[in-house]
């Protein structure tokens, strides 16, 4: 798998993502700079990492979404290249219009860093194929603005098209408003674009890939990609 991670000013989980990719695929990713105007040839996967691009100022992800490299990322997504946006990367994808919806302030208004449970809703993607349908996994979140919002029409469409990837739930897999850690509409933690080659998600699978760090439920996501994109 030939992967690249885009570094924006203020990205801070690019090395975490790089480690998870290397573990899963045996190949270290390239790091790209937000001002690059072209992508390396033959990329299979582009990752927009977590962090605080532009300090989360104005709106999370808004300024990064306007970076020169995002034009290339959009074009690559259009060609079917896999694009994974984690946390701030999800916010950037949403601001760039690559996935629908917006990420608002957490309902508590506070930053939240803790393990949460996710239900894997859709396993028919190259990101999630390695999970069992409805599998409950534990991964951390670490964000202040992960409160997914879209209008009802959009939410209905996402659900109808099977484009909800993950939902916040409890340890038993029960999805209720109380388990929506940040207030996300319909407990949505991750969504696909219409071609399912772009995934935006708030939780951090890259920080849950080793038992030593408290669990390895995030590994299957990277392993799925490595398998789909040999």
């Amino acid at each position, binding site marked *: 798998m030939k992967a690249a991670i885009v570094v924006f*000013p203020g*990205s801070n989980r690019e090395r975490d993502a790089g480690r998870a990719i290397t573990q899963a695929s045996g190949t270290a990713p390239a790091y790209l700079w937000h001002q690059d105007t072209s992508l390396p040839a033959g990329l299979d996967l582009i990752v927009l990492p977590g962090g605080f691009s532009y*300090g989360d100022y104005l709106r999370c992800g808004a300024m990064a979404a306007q970076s020169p490299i995002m034009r290339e990322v959009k074009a690559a997504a259009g060609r079917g290249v896999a694009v994974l946006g984690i946390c701030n990367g999800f916010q950037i994808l949403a601001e760039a219009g690559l996935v629908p919806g917006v990420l608002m302030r957490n309902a508590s208004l506070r*930053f*939240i*860093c803790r393990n949460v449970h996710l239900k894997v809703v859709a396993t028919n993607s190259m990101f999630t194929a390695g999970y069992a349908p409805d599998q409950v996994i534990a991964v951390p979140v*670490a964000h202040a603005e992960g409160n997914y919002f879209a209008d009802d029409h959009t939410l209905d469409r996402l659900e109808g098209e099977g484009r909800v990837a993950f939902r916040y739930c409890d340890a038993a897999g029960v999805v209720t408003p109380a388990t929506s850690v940040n207030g996300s509409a319909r407990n949505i933690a991750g969504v696909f674009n219409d071609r399912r080659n772009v995934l935006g998600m708030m939780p951090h699978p890259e*920080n849950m890939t080793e038992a030593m760090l408290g669990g390895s439920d995030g590994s299957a996501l990277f392993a799925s990609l490595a398998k789909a994109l040999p």
Partner: protein
Amino acid sequence: MSQITPEIIAGHGLTTDEYARVLEIMGREPNLTELGIFSVMWSEHCSYKSSRVHLKTLPTSGPRVICGPGENAGVVDLGDGLAAIFKMESHNHPSFIEPYQGAATGVGGILRDVFTMGARPIAILDPLRFGAPDHPKTRHLVGGVVAGIGGYGNCMGIPTVGGECSFHPAYDGNILVNAMTVGLARTDKIFYSAAAGVGNPVVYVGSKTGRDGIHGATMASAEFDETSEEKRPTVQVGDPFTEKLLLEACLELMASDAIVAIQDMGAAGLTSSSVEMASKGGVGIELMLDHVPQRETGMTAYEMMLSESQERMLMILKPGREAAARAIFEKWGLAFAVIGLVTDTGRLVLHHRGAVVADIPVGPLTDQSPIYHRPWEPTPPQPPIDPATIAEPADLGAALSALLGSPDLCSKRWIIEQYDHLVGGDTVVRPGGDAALLRLPGSPKGLAVATDCTPRYVQADPVAGGAQAVAECWRNLTAVGGLPLAITDCMNFGNPERPRIMGQFVGAIEGMAQACRALDFPVVSGNVSLYNETKGQGILPTPAIGGIALLDDHTRFATIAFKAPGEAILVVGRTAGWLGQSLYLRSATGREDGAPPPVDLAAERRTGDFVRDLIVRGQVRTCHDVADGGLLVALAEMALAGGRGADLTTPPGTRHRAAFWFGEDQARYLVAVPADAAGAILAAAAAAGVVAAALGVTGGDALTMDGRALADLAALRQVHEGWLPAYMAQA
């Protein structure tokens, strides 16, 4: 007519004697800019004039110490070419005035201290002390401070993995916001601040200079009065985004060999950085202030020299490296300007708008800064408390519940979860236990970090309390399996001009020095914050200690959580039942008195070495040190963390059950081990001269004692987890 009136001198916090010394050094009357420079350099904050003679008595060297106090941060050898660089600092006064920005810029400042030496920061810790929960300001301060620390550290992408948070009315008017950063560097890539090389360029990088916090450094050294909330515009606003860029740009430049010396601009910004660089290098510095990147128009030399705008650094570059360095900083979108050069005059010379606006000999400015041997009085000892005079509680379980749900002992999850403690992907033991553990990237080793202090002990007996703070930090690091290497400190005290307060400071230093020596735990950096006093009411003396410890194998560690049912619970260390200054005494009787628990440093070391050895050899995976609240509180924390209970037995012959279970005797650990391993461990303890005894067995979903139910875990969890969120939810 003289420009410098007695009012101006007093307004700059200089005494008549100090001003006389200024005149002597200058050989003429200083102008206002020069006076401002003397004033900040000679402030308590920059000159350590009240504390210096005593700080000198702390042990600061050891086989692993690469650089002790005196630089931006301390440097300790971790082996394999790696060094830990760390320091703690206070931002107390600014955080009281504006909690969010005060705390945020405190974190920003301590981060710069560490990365200015070439280290990538890997951990932040934040010891916090607030006033009484029912004081009208406390809730707002807690919310703002925690949000500010998270706001800065999270954005920087550095995990905040530990700290403290306690409450006491003595902090009502002076909260303590201390912040510690630990960074990692290569031993052959450490950067120092001594300027060198006549003609070398002096380079300014980072944010532009505005009129931020002018006189912040003198404010941090002045006692609070009721008008200080009026001094509002001196608050600085932090910009963690710019600091993140500054960090990456500095590390990128540091990978080359362009830098001769580098120094962050902290308190007293351009003044202290340029003076310290010149003074350490024994050279002069000449600055062209017109070239300083400025955010506001019409700034005077005085304002530029005293501005405390954040996120700035001063560097001396090798000649000819300016262009390469500029390219890096401009790539990261940061200001870069050559603003002066190193000279051989030994003088700080400032040019502005075509005139020399200051010309001061650097040597005398720093060497002849005032030093005070302030008069001090020892704290009168308090009598020990005989447990027999304290009534046994009707219900031990209710007493436990009251303690676990108290502001000081309740879970700090509400705080911990507002900090990104996972970014970096190296957090092996998360906050919430004794010490956090980080693995070192690309190495089998791990680094444990913790901060500790028990101010009520220091108040009652400064020497014992100072020793206890160091010992407790050493114990917390040991409890995860770390070999403690060195400490940093943040000495938070009241007004040193009061002999009683000065006596607390002197005593605490003496106790700390004893413990550092006995435990081979030298001080490599630190910070002093005096005048934490409002209307004559001083804080509890609070020498916060931050320590680091090394694990050769980061897979051999212990956590506090009970891991399996049926394990034997052992207490290692002697329990006498010490109630003086204990939280139980306060909770049960409202009393805050008596002598604090004695600190037996030899026993501390013997016990800790024994426990660490068990962890390192893989025989113990569950360990918790015993501190505030004694054995039963520690046991409850282990049960809650592991989600399983315990059946406990009071040792036969125990004279006072509450004293046994809640006493705060030092040098103790609780461990849980497979039942069939307990005998051998008890025998090994006896052979090592360490007191150890069985206390019970893990299992169930409650704590039971001597055959009777004590407390349900679910109920305990509710009181333990409930207090802080419920408190913060009130408006």
